[in-house]
């Protein structure tokens, strides 16, 4: 990959969002060097399990891991950070390259307003301090997919700093044991992405795609281990992790590797490593650049980026030329933490259920659509969406958007269940039919499969009576004082109704008949 090597003078936590496809990145990283940072760093999602995972030996304190993430995330924008070229995923190589993107001499960067807005909104969502003035810098290094010989980034004064993100995570065996953690955000910065290098080893060629790198998310994890109370350990950087799963696995592995190394008397080198997802281990990268000096310099072609709020907005300013933080704040969608709290409050949902609804893309929207259309209890809806629906999705590895069952269909099904037109087991059956996606409504399926509950009380009484008559020994058993015998009778009646009778109703009829 072409991503620049990034070295930080100490371990810590770094999150960044970069725009891929030439875009930009907001980056969050660690404050440099303080021990307290390292300690608090232990509370990140990524490293939490590892601290407890390592059992202390006799007379030794346990190891603590410090993890910092630098997250490069692509901004959802139509054009690139500094040029008018479009952004398209999987466009043909070099098809979206402006003269600026190709670094033709004399071209100049022009900042994309949408990217700035996205960065500010991200900063607000992560509780950052938004810098009213931020600057752009050039970071120099030679690489074939960096045509200008430098990358435009925000090194000295980024657009947002000092944020935090609170989140809940379940600890222990029960999912209901949720604890709230906070991760600190050092900074968010807008950054131009490099291009993409494709190495053709056969012909010893490198092909460059200046559409800019692929993928929407790329994470570099900085990891070190030390014993609490002692100075921070030497850090390694695992680069170019592109999924949360690999990120977690890479960090797990790297922490364990470092601990093993140190306990066997080895030492940790300050190096960049990559994660081999097939072998599940990290390996040193060919570090040909040695100690890089990026020779940072202010980008002279971009004036300082000034942001305003309703108080500081210059009078008569052209709204197209200024960015008003307060207006962006109004445009922020409901943040996940607020949504989770609202779900718990509004529907009496368990906190872990509110988390589960938000952890799957589109699931919350699906849930809300069902809720809107059905008379079924929210608890019922939650249970169906999180157990049955999500279970089916997971089983077939589908996204919510790929589900064959629409929210309306599920709502209709839950309505049938709610007014006792069908039994729970019949409902499961209907859902399976719906999943097969033959274009039928739940009502049609119920009618075709004759799944509706027996509503004719006389017929039910008749069936109960004949069941009692046909099984005198069970009745005897019951009369001798075995309370569980009633369940057997209920089962027999249900079987006789082909599962279409409500067990509660059967029980009522049977008890009446037995006592008469």
């Amino acid at each position, binding site marked *: 990959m072409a991503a620049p090597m990034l070295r930080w003078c100490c371990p810590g936590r770094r999150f960044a969002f970069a725009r891929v496809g030439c875009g930009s990145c907001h980056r969050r990283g660690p404050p440099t060097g303080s021990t307290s940072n390292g300690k608090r760093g232990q509370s990140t999602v990524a490293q939490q399990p590892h601290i407890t995972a390592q059992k202390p030996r006799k007379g030794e304190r346990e190891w603590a891991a410090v993890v910092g993430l630098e997250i490069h995330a692509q901004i959802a924008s139509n054009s690139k950070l500094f040029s008018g070229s479009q952004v398209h995923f999987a466009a043909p190589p070099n098809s979206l390259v402006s*003269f600026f993107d190709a670094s033709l*001499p*004399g071209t100049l960067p022009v900042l994309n307003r949408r990217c700035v807005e996205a960065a500010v909104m991200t900063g607000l969502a992560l509780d950052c301090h938004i810098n009213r003035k931020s600057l752009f810098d050039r970071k120099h290094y030679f690489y074939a997919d960096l045509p*200008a010989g430098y990358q435009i980034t925000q090194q000295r004064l980024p657009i947002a700093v000092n944020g935090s993100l609170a989140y809940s995570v379940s600890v222990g065996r029960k999912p209901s044991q949720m604890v709230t953690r906070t991760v600190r955000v050092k900074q968010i910065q807008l950054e131009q992405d490099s291009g993409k290098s494709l190495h053709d080893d056969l012909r010893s060629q490198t092909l*460059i795609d200046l559409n800019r790198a692929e993928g929407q998310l790329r994470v570099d994890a900085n990891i070190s281990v030390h014993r609490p109370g002692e100075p921070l350990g030497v850090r390694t950087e695992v680069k170019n992790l592109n999924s949360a799963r690999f990120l977690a696995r890479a960090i797990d592995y790297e922490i364990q590797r470092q601990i093993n190394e140190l306990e066997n008397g080895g030492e940790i080198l300050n190096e960049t490593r990559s994660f081999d997802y097939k072998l599940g281990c990290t390996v040193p990268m060919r570090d040909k650049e040695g100690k890089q000096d990026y020779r*940072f310099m202010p980008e*002279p072609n971009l004036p300082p980026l000034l942001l305003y709020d309703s108080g500081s907005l210059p009078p008569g300013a052209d709204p197209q030329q200024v960015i008003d933080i307060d207006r962006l704040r109004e445009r922020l969608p409901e943040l996940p933490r607020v949504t989770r709290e609202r779900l718990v409050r509004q529907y009496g949902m368990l906190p872990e259920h509110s988390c589960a609804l938000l952890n799957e893309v589109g699931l919350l929207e699906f849930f809300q659509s069902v809720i809107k259309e059905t008379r079924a209890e929210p608890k019922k809806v939650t249970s169906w969406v999180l157990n049955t629906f999500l279970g089916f999705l997971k089983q077939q590895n589908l996204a919510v958007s790929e589900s064959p069952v629409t929210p309306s269909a599920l709502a209709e099904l839950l309505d049938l269940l709610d007014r006792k037109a069908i039994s729970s087991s019949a409902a499961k059956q209907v859902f399976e039919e719906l999943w097969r996606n033959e274009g039928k409504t739940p009502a049609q399926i119920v009618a075709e499969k004759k799944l509706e509950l027996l509503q004719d009380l006389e017929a039910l009484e008749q069936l109960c009576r004949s069941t009692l008559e046909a099984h005198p020994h069970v009745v005897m058993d019951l009369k001798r004082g075995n309370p569980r015998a009633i369940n057997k009778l209920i089962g027999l009646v249900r079987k006789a109704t082909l599962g279409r009778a409500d067990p509660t109703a059967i029980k009522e009829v049977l008890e009446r008949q037995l006592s008469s």
Partner: protein
Amino acid sequence: MVKDGCAHVKPAAATDLSVFLLVTWSLWWQTGHEDHVGPDPPRIIFSAGKALHRGALGWKAEWLLSIIRLLRLSPTLDGLEVSVALKQGQVTPTELCQRCLSLIKKTKFLNAYITVSEEVALKQAEEAEKRYKKGHSLGDLDGIPIAVKDNFSTSGIETTCASNMLKGYVPPYNATVVQKLLDQGALLMGKTNLDEFAMGSGSTDGIFGPVKNPWSYSKQYREKRKQNSHSENEDSNWLITGGSSGGSAAAVSAFTCFAALGSDTGGSTRNPAAHCGVVGLKPSYGLVSRHGLIPLVNSMDVPGILTRCVDDAATVLGILAGHDPKDSTTIQDPVKPFTLPSLTDVSKLCIGIPKEYLTPELSSEVHSLWSKAANLFESEGAKVIEVSLPHTSYSIVCYHVLCTSEVASNMARFDGLEYGHRCDSSVSTEAMYAATRREGFNDVVRGRILSGNFFLLKENYENYFVKAQKVRRLIANDFVNVFNSGVDVLLTPTTLSEAVPYTEFIKEDNRTRSAQDDIFTQAVNMAGLPAVSVPMALSTQGLPIGLQFIGRAFCDQQLLTVAKWFEKQVQFPVIQLQELMDDCSSVFENEKLASVSLK
């Protein structure tokens, strides 16, 4: 303060063709020039008077005048604007274009042009001609020949920066300033010579060789040399143009075009303008787009304008100025096209004379002309005061750090991968970079890249770059303080002396020369101010000396108004290139252009 009025037209210097010098020209130059002293009786008829009344925006055509004088037409005429002549059909764009093209050929030895875009120019002229015939001219620039320094991107025309690195590089787009000129119907004659990547003050350090100053061949200089010098070998003593926009200055000075674009980072437009006896304007930073200008120092570069009179510079500035969405450092406020009024009263004007500019290296002749100019303002009622710019002496060293740092950064893109030179080596990518850059850049460029990278190293950044930025602020504040104290315009020399012979110039290296020669011009770039060099008089050697006016940021119009008043007072003489003119007049006849009737 400034009143509107009819622009003054400069009277023609008396020219006597019979006194024409027989000098030892190179052979091709010599051929046939004696046959054309006396052309046929008048064919060109002037509608004198009418043509002279013009708005402030006009093209003063010494060039046409020279032709006319040579043809012994209307010797009493004292001026003409080409744009009016074009509008009135007295001359056609194609004729103008062909005359300039033949002059370019005749003055090829000056080495002013790297590329002559003859076909492009003729095609543009044809289109302009159609417009004029329909009466739909695009404006004052329609059909006017211009030249562009070869560090501005020109679509489809090679843009070399006089460097091996960009030899053969043909940009796919036009610089904004080039596009604006073309949109106005200007004819692009070609790309002018410079120091490699505009790094130099002599126009001597490009791969296409040095530019020769047209004044080397002027009657004025040759006569003086004859009196003063015993040197036999005249041609070996040709003079440098100054730089780095020497090609543009020479092109304008030798009448091969009416205006030329230069670039100005530390004086690169004003310095050669002073040496070549033309007007050189460095607009305020941010007033004119840099999009497409291959950068030297982004934070100081400004497209410069070279013309033969202040009015012409104002016309071009009026077209180029304004916001460019492709250059975020251009001003947002709309710039209205302006006309330069003729100042009649300077009594409300306050002229500042910076005392730090009186350096020991300043030649006595320039010094005395500077004093004379100050006295001129004073005698006409202006307030002339001595002012102080206390940080001036730090300017050169500060510039060195900032300039080389940006150069190191800007030159990083020349790696041989996408465009420009690439070495043959294919050992590794790194080896390819190294060899490409060693072969592609000259010593001057490589030296600046090395210095710049040194200053940008993490361990040096604070001590050099950051300090230089702070000094830059102090230098800029010096100007702010002076202008806040009520000074309207500063008056300074442009150069230490008149142009020196090439053989003299190359005795010092590029760095020493640049440091010396930028002394009066370069602080202006640090502060982003507008400045203009106006030719004042000829030295005892018969060479032009220019003075510089420095204005308040974005008060370019006020600056030019004062410059125009000064220009009118000093009556700088027209360069007398008799042989050149004579040769041209033969072209003039041979190509049946003389039959054109200027009604």
